């Protein structure tokens, strides 16, 4: 290349970029890039010293390659060399490279810092700015150590150029954020504050960000900024639209600076000085007035800038929360925006009103917009706007409008987006509880909620309902009656509610209940079984029928351990125990002590990890735990029901004694009250039945049996304690399947032990963190774990032994390193042994969720590549196919998430049918790489899938097909 061509920019770079753009496929691009990388590497390593221009060009190419998403592991040294070039463009590219690609290589940072130091002391403003930009971009601790004391000096020095001051202010801000301990303003404080008065608007704009941040940390030291900010704001607000020249943006004077000023003021309470405060109120009024003026331009930029200031002013008004007049005006202004044609404004108005609703001055004003907000919830086309409307309805809800709002939210739930349903359910449940004036409304609402959004109703919600119903005997009649009717007419939707319905003539009840048994999920069946044993206790006449049910093979030999255990134990209990024993064992639960709603805690949690601390969550969960298994509570606490602190508690809870005398009498006829004459028989007391409910959620409470390694009533032959590792649990495969598409979660949990897993995989290696939690309050002794791999040399799993003692409530961690030698089918087995009280040895074997797909590397490819490869893998044994019924939701997002979780790349625009999913990946084992292509064809109508896999190795196709068929 002739030297002359260097003149027009960097031609080599432009040619390279064109080449990349002309690449037809990802592979061609990678090939071209690798060629270039090899070229650059050889140039950098070559004997001939490169001139500055070439260095700049190659560094720039590396940067481009990095920005395309490829890893760059060399060139840093050359970039650092460029920093000390005295040619501006070389220096500039050097700095850019460092800013984008810096890693905390301490050796390099020292060199970079040296170059920066030179540029900072060069007195050349352009060089100084470059150096400051670099510090602000990298912002590392090392840089803070080197420059935190230097930059304030540059910032306040009289002879510093304005542009340098601007960079210095923001640079200092960045360092302050990374290392607040190193940035000491001290003597500079007042001079920095006075930058608010600077002639140059750019300097003020930059400095105010710094001042705002510092004020948040040291409000007292920076207090003087309030009056300065107010006067600056006042000057801007009252200036004509052209006064500020280039700082006027679409006829709005200095919108960025205004917003920043208003933001700064939000760090402080309203000014105490009357004059300052008066001036500020005047400013806020002017801003509100301007919103009413006709726009000076039709451009959206004009209205956006103007409204940006308005919203910031409203934030300040809400922050002060002391000017009723301004609050109401703000509310009216937002009310206008609620019907604005700009979606953005409607969104922001809804959002801003949410905070206004919590102010006592503006709550009523917000409420006047209820119809508009409900309308927004129904008609907005954008889900994020609807979400805001739902939030606002929740915020503006009070006793006066609760019924309307809850009804609207319920009807919205029928069509609501899946992404927000769970949160909506919680909100409805909370509002229904908080503002319930009569129980029938509460019960109806919750039942409706479950009918509409059953799948999204979390455990907390129905635990809470049962808690409330149990504590209030006046609601029990209505609740039981309603649930019974629902059960009669609409059985399919009510899943777990079955367990709570026991009404009517005993045998009729039982038959009704049992007729739905086969429709229920395993947890519900477990509840039902517990309900049956209570039937036997309360109505001896049902005993024979129920024993028959328990005795039948589908119960006593059920493949689910929990169901089987319950059936066996209950059967034994009913035949061995005397009536007295039975009555004692199944004695009703005392009412729950009142406490914070578990759903409220859940909602807080949903609002993101930042909103609630872990301990709070801890509490809420503990509470939920107690709710369903209050086994720890002795009779003492139970005999003194706490006066209802709950909002629902309109009257205080009835004493337990009274409730107990009712139990067993068969006198309350709910239906005769309501005129349902087709159920003329006497009904059993609903109270007692509801009271019994929570018991059945927790098998360990029923008999206190399951807690023991070898249950008293368990057939002794089935689980003999032994020193050999137990055979894998029957549900081990099911547990394994849960982890095919995810790497983290709870692997196993019973009454004693919880095992959490966090794992990561790279190439053919994996690391798995196992967390063993002791859920009891007693120590686990001789705790040991072993991992064994079936099959020969397919996986290599290494682990360190764990601590032999696990204290009650404590958790220990174990790390496994996993290497995939060759492809495999069988998961490694994890055996855990420990004893409690020095008693029987617990011996448990699980399958570790290490499946072949964990070693996938996603592969992106174009449609043509995909089909080409697909054809190459055409031998019949390379393909595995399965047609199966959907077991889970067929929702697109869920499917996509699962396919991504699988580890493959999800390829868009490959399959001609957009409904289908196509994935590609390479399984990395130590010995070889196995390419895999996947195609999943859902048929929503038939609720079926066809899954086809083609892999370069036949065993892998089969195994993946087996694994995946369980996932969808």
């Amino acid at each position, binding site marked *: 290349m002739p030297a*002359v061509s260097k003149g027009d920019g960097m031609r080599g770079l432009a040619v390279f970029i064109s080449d990349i753009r002309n690449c037809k496929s990802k592979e061609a691009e990678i090939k071209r890039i690798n060629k270039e990388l090899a070229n650059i590497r050889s140039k950098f390593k070559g004997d001939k010293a490169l001139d500055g221009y070439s260095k700049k060009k190659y560094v720039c190419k590396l940067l481009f390659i990095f*920005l395309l998403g490829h890893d760059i592991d060399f060139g840093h040294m050359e970039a650092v060399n460029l920093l000390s070039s005295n040619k501006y463009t070389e220096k500039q590219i050097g700095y850019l490279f460092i800013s*984008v690609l810096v890693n905390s290589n301490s050796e390099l940072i020292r060199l970079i810092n040296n170059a920066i130091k030179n540029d900072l002391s060069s007195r050349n403003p352009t060089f100084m700015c470059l150096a400051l*930009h670099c510090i602000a971009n990298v912002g590392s601790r090392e840089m803070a150590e080197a420059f935190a004391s230097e930059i304030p000096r540059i910032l306040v020095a009289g002879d510093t150029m304005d542009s340098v001051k601007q960079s210095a202010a923001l640079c200092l801000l960045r360092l302050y954020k990374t290392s607040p301990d190193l940035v000491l303003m001290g003597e500079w404080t007042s001079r920095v504050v006075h930058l608010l008065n600077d002639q140059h608007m750019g300097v003020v704009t930059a400095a105010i960000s710094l001042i705002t941040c510092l004020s948040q940390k040291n409000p007292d030291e920076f207090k003087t900024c309030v009056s300065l900010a107010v006067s600056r704001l006042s000057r801007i607000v009252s200036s004509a639209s052209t006064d500020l020249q280039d700082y006027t943006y679409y006829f709005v004077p200095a919108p960025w600076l205004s917003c920043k000023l208003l933001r700064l003021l939000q760090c402080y309470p309203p000014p105490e000085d009357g004059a300052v405060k008066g001036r500020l109120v005047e400013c806020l009024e002017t801003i509100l007035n301007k919103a009413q003026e006709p726009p000076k331009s039709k451009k959206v930029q004009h209205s956006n800038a103007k*409204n*940006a200031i308005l919203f910031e002013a409203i934030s300040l008004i809400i922050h002060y929360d002391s000017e009723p007049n301004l609050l109401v005006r703000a509310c009216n202004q937002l009310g206008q925006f609620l019907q604005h044609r700009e979606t953005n404004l409607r969104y922001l108005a809804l959002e801003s009103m949410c905070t206004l609703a919590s102010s006592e001055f503006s709550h009523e004003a917000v409420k006047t917009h209820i119809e508009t907000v409900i309308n927004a919830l129904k008609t907005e086309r954008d889900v994020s706007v609807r979400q805001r409307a739902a939030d606002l309805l929740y915020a503006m809800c009070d006793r006066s409008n609760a019924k309307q709002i809850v009804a609207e939210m319920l009807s919205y739930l029928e069509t609501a987006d899946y992404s927000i349903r769970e949160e909506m359910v919680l909100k409805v449940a909370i509002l229904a509880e908080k503002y319930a004036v009569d129980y029938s409304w509460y019960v109806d609402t919750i039942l409706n909620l479950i009918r509409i959004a059953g799948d999204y109703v979390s455990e907390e919600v129905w635990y809470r309902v049962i808690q409330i119903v149990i504590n209030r005997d006046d609601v029990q009649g209505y609740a039981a009656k309603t649930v019974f009717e629902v059960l009669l007419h609409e059985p399919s939707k009510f899943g777990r509610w079955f367990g709570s319905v026991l009404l009517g003539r005993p045998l009729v009840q039982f038959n009704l209940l049992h007729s739905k048994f086969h429709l229920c999920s395993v947890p519900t069946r477990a509840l039902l079984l517990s309900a049956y044993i209570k039937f036997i206790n309360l109505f001896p006449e049902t005993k024979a029928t129920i024993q028959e049910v328990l005795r039948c093979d589908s119960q006593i030999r059920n493949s689910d351990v929990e169901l089987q255990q319950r059936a066996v134990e209950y059967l034994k209990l009913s035949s061995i125990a005397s009536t007295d024993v039975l009555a004692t064992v199944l004695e009703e639960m005392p009412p729950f002590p009142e406490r914070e709603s578990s759903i409220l805690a859940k909602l807080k949690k949903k609002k993101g990890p930042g909103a609630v601390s872990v301990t709070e*969550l801890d509490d809420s969960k503990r509470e939920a735990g107690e709710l369903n298994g209050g086994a720890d509570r002795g009779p003492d606490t139970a005999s003194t029901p706490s006066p209802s602190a709950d909002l629902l508690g309109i009257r205080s809870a009835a004493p337990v004694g009274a409730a107990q005398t009712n139990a067993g009498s068969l006198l309350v006829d709910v239906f005769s009250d309501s005129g349902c004459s087709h159920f003329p028989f006497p009904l059993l007391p609903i109270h007692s039945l509801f009271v019994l409910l929570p018991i059945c959620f927790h098998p360990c409470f029923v008999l206190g049996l399951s807690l023991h390694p070898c249950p008293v009533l368990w057939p002794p032959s089935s689980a003999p304690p032994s020193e050999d590792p137990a055979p894998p649990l029957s549900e081990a495969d099911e547990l394994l399947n849960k982890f095919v598409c995810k790497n983290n979660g709870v692997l196993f949990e019973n009454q004693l032990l919880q095992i959490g897993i966090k794992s990561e995989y790279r190439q053919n290696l994996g*690391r798995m963190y196992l967390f063993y939690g002791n859920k009891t309050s007693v120590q686990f002794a001789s705790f040991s774990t072993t991992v064994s791999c079936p099959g020969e040399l397919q996986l290599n799993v290494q682990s360190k032994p764990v601590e032999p003692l696990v204290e009650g409530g404590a958790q220990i961690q174990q790390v496994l390193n996993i290497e995939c030698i060759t492809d495999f089918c069988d998961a490694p087995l994890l055996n855990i042994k420990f004893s409690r009280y020095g008693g029987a040895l617990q011996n448990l074997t699980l399958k570790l969720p290490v499946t072949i797909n964990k070693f996938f590397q996603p592969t992106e490819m174009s449609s043509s590549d995909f089909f080409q490869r697909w054809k190459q893998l055409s031998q019949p044994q390379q393909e595995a196919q399965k047609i199966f019924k959907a077991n889970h939701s067929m929702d697109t997002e869920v499917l996509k998430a699962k396919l991504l979780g699988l580890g493959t790349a999800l390829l868009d625009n490959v399959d001609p049918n957009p409904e289908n999913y196509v994935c590609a990946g390479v399984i990395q084992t130590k010995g070889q790489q196995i390419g895999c292509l996947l195609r999943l064809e859902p048929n929503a109508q038939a609720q079926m899938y066809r899954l086809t896999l083609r892999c370069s190795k036949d065993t892998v196709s089969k195994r993946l097909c087996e694994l995946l068929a369980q996932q969808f």
Partner: protein
Amino acid sequence: MFALVANQKVVIDWPCFWVVLGGSFLPRGVYTVLLFKMQFMLLFSRQGKLRLQKWYVPLSDKEKKKITRELVQTVLARKPKMCSFLEWRDLKIVYKRYASLYFCCAIEDQDNELITLEIIHRYVELLDKYFGSVCELDIIFNFEKAYFILDEFLLGGEAQETSKKNVLKAIEQADLLQENIDFQMRLFAAPS
């Protein structure tokens, strides 16, 4: 090799387990205590190709790629008339489409969305003025210039200089330095 956070405490109750493990990957303290204005800015094409990325919070390359991938998908899936703001994880995304390019900023939850929208617009104006009706190709081939302009306008996620004239003046001065040097080099390199 493994980017697992050290000393991670996992509590026993499973919902908490998820908070700790499944929670946001942005370091917690960064946005609750330290108030970064803008967290990052991404420019990408309608085909989902990333054209420019600027990160104002320290994140690993892996995290950056993950965020980019998810966000590009999310934004591209939105329909034209939809609101320019969306909540995404703990952040708020403000985006706007100009011809074939999406400009996308992540700000904190309580930040001013409209002014961020105008930050995007001002940046587009700056690019437009500098390149003379800018198009995607200008940004591809002169990506370094796009970065330089951005650095003059925003620094550390905060507006440094909002005057169009002043920003362009700074960039033009730098270009002048470059041309002088190029001119000298030409003289030097091609004596014939």
